[in-house]
């Protein structure tokens, strides 16, 4: 409320700046004129001559020149139209100010501003963090610690997956690199680094990410994550047969209760490969796969449900996140809850309706999910 009050005061001040001169009755304030300047110049010549800067002959020549200009200027100013005042014009200008200033200001501000967001300076933020955001606060502490002890490999190893899960992929990439440098190279770390690179590239297996996966496979040929993403890289390159071959090999070699099985099977279906008999089950969001690795079927179901619920709650409070909406819709679809998916889709459309760019992005994403055409 205070904010709108401040805005109103500022607007009034701005309008006042325009109205004030209009309200003053036309004083004979016509400003300086050419004649005055020439008169001053004539006086200056006398002073210069008195202090010996110019000689008498030069002074005379200058005086003649300036006098000539002075006469011309006086002549000219006599012919200029006098300054007047027109009530109609002033009223028009006043209306322009009264209407224009608030309209322009609110038009731009409402389109660009975020009036509902309060300030969030560092001091306040760390206080809030203590009470409500233990994880975030912890991350900050670990980061501060690592800032001062950058060679603490264990610290980086702990921090990296957390950053990755928080969506801070760029930082996660750096953390994994440091973990590899200071805590040694393992296939898991290489694969995780590749995954973080993938996250920072918005899901595209970049050349850098691919190199990391290849290194991981070189260290451990059976590394599931690396193999899966190498398949994905092949798929993204358009080499669907290669992808299918890779994934089929994984399914054939891997343990039958491996948590990644459903994911790989779903991917295999996507590229048109033949799936060995089995369940075709949910494709988890990439980040969760690692976490879901060591869980039982029931635990995993609960975990997924919890994640989806959290996502849904977050999107209710902040609807700008197009990717989030798409993830939610996809999750409902793979969980077989088509009704919820459709209602989420409607919610998403509503949430981003006032932003054409996001709406387009959303629609494209939905089309890819095959929900509507």
């Amino acid at each position, binding site marked *: 409320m205070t904010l709108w009050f401040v805005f109103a005061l500022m607007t009034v001040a*701005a309008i006042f700046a*325009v109205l004030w001169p209009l309200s003053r009755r036309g004083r004979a304030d016509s400003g300086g004129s050419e004649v005055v300047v020439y008169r001053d110049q004539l006086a200056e010549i006398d002073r210069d001559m008195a202090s010996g800067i110019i000689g008498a002959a030069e002074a005379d020549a200058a005086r003649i020149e300036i006098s000539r200009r002075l006469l011309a200027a006086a002549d000219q100013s006599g012919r200029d139209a006098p300054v007047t005042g027109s009530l109609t014009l002033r009223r028009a200008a006043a209306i322009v100010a009264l209407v224009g200033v608030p309209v322009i200001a609110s038009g731009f501000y409402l389109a*660009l501003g975020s009036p509902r967001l309060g300030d969030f300076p560092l001091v306040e933020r760390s206080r809030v963090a203590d009470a409500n955001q233990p994880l975030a606060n912890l991350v900050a502490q670990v980061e501060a610690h690592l*800032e001062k002890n950058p060679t603490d490999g264990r610290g980086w190893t702990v921090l990296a997956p957390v950053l990755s899960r928080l969506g801070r992929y760029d930082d996660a990439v750096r953390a994994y690199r440091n973990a590899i440098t200071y805590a040694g190279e393992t296939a898991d770390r290489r694969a995780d680094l590749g995954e973080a690179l993938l996250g920072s590239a918005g899901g595209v297996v970049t050349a850098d990410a691919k190199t990391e996966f290849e290194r991981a496979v070189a260290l451990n040929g059976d590394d599931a994550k690396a193999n899966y993403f190498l398949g994905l890289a092949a798929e993204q390159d358009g080499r669907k047969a290669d992808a299918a071959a890779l994934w089929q090999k994984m399914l054939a070699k891997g343990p039958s209760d491996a948590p990644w099985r459903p994911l790989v099977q779903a991917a295999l279906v996507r590229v048109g490969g033949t799936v060995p008999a089995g369940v075709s089950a949910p494709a988890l969001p990439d980040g969760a796969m690692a976490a879901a690795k060591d869980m039982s079927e029931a635990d995993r179901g609960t975990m997924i449900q919890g994640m989806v619920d959290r996502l849904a709650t977050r999107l209710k409070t902040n609807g700008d996140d197009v990717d989030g909406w798409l993830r939610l819709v996809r999750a409902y679809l793979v969980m077989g809850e088509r009704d919820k998916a459709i209602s989420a889709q409607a919610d998403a459309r509503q949430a981003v309706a006032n932003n054409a760019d996001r709406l387009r992005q959303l629609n494209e994403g939905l089309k890819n999910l095959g929900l509507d055409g």
Partner: protein
Amino acid sequence: MIAESGHYALVLALALALIQSIVPIVGARWRDAALMNVARSTALAQLLFVGASFAALVTLHVTSDFSVANVYENSHSLKPLLYKITGVWGNHEGSMLLWVSILALFGGLVAAFGNNLPLSLRAHVLAVQAWVASAFYLFILITSNPFLRLANPPLEGRDLNPVLQDIGLAVHPPMLYLGYVGFSISFSFAVAALLEGKIDAAWARWVRPWTLMAWIFLTLGIAMGSYWAYYELGWGGWWFWDPVENASLMPWLAGTALLHSALVMEKRNALKVWTVLLSILTFSLSLLGTFLVRSGVLTSVHAFATDPTRGVFILLILFVFIGGSLSLYAWRAPALKQGGLFAPISREGALVLNNLLLTTACATVFIGTLYPLALEVLTGEKISVGAPFFNFTFAPLFVPLLLAVPFGPLLAWKRGDLLGAAQRLMVAGIAALVAIAVVLAWTYGGATLAPLAIGLAAFVIMGALCDLAERIALFRIPLSLSLRRARGLPRATWGTAFAHAGLGVALIGIVCETTWNSEYIGSMKPDDVAKVAGYELRLDGLNPRQGPNFREMVAQFTVTRDGDKVSVMTPSKRNFTTRGASTTEAALLTRGASQLYISLGDTSADGAIAVRIYHKPLVLMIWWGPVLMAFGGMLSLSDRRLRVGAPKPAKSAARALQAAE
């Protein structure tokens, strides 16, 4: 609330600027005093609101409010307070906000101190100022808004580019912008004169001091930037003919020409139309500079902002303002009153020569900077135009200019006596010859051009002193009388002498540094000794150290000369974890005007470190020169007398006079 209030203040400033663009013009058209006076209060209110907006952004940076995207992207909570503040303009959005703040400041100054301007001229000037301001407010709000928010503020910011975490950032951009934007005043005056169709004496009286002020800031800004690049980038170079540097040099050259032609106009009422054109060109070049730096069309050491939509928007602003003002000039200039007459050999004539040479020099820089860009756009071919091009084109233009500099102040207004001036410069000529001989003898067998250049510099410096000596009749009348006359000399005269001497000083620095610079490049292990220019530098060791937001590796060198310990130098390499970037902090040891310069390279596996050591003779004179020029400018600016150039009376009426334009 601070962030949103700052945002709203900026939007209100736009609304006020739009009103200020139209209402005063209407008022001037119908000669309504009240409407014309609207310009004044809106300009002041605009300054208030933009100032508030800028203050809000500074506050957000200082309190590390990462819910503001701009703060998150360019700040870090561990950054020292100074860099939190300077970081405000160390990024694209913030620097554009600084740009418009300064624009509003100048508008406010005209509004506050423009009482002695004719009412309609003031209304026009402020309206034109508001056009420029509106364009840039729109640019900021639409493409580079510093007040955009993040709904879920991250815990830590991404930190400022480490190269910019330096005291240089506190001084260089504000100075440069004060210069760039200061020229907007002369631009607004020029366009106002064209709109009004007349240039009166009040116009002339106003343009020169404003131009001078902008010029002083630009001079200091460029010099500061050059020194910053010298010590921060670690290459030991001070001018790279980089497009971004050229972008600031072009307005400086045009501005210097403008300064001199405005002088002729104020004192002699001549060269009016030319001054109007130069005003337009100078500010156009400032806009071009802004475009080159801010659009990211260049890939250079300075280009840290890139986004094509911004580029197109600034290009549009550029076309509208440059194209519009030049069209207006073509249309209205013929209607302007012609100015006074003068002979080719006269003070005016000398200043015309100065203008010709400076604008030509500016044109060569322009071509050298934009030709590669144009070629890349048209053919896709990437070429780089570097120092050789500029040395071959720029230098030959500056030599005659420098030769002519001492003559100018010695010539009389309206009709001068070249022979007389040459006689009075005899002392300077002799001093130049002596300097050439001494330098040649000292560096026998070395470079041949360098001694000549030193001679030229000596000529310029002595010429400036000769002018002073002439005015106070030194050695011709008793010394006490001369001193009294010296006190009585207008400060503007002293200013001219200082500024011209500054040119010579800078030239000496440039020549010495480029010709007699000695260096040692190699890798050193602890206790190794390098010998450079008579100094012995021993690497004592390498020590790691923890800074507030970086770690650094500090090398310690003990400098001795002939066995006597001179000093200890500690260059370092800093690593900034947040950005994963590193910077080189060169160590400088100043001995008189010369400097020893050490910068560190990479460490190799066997514990050796790559080291570059330079001895740069008289290098500091490169920057003392511009400082001297700026000091001269300030002296001249502080001289509030009316300027009248008293003409030399004609001896015979038969002498032909040249038209001014």
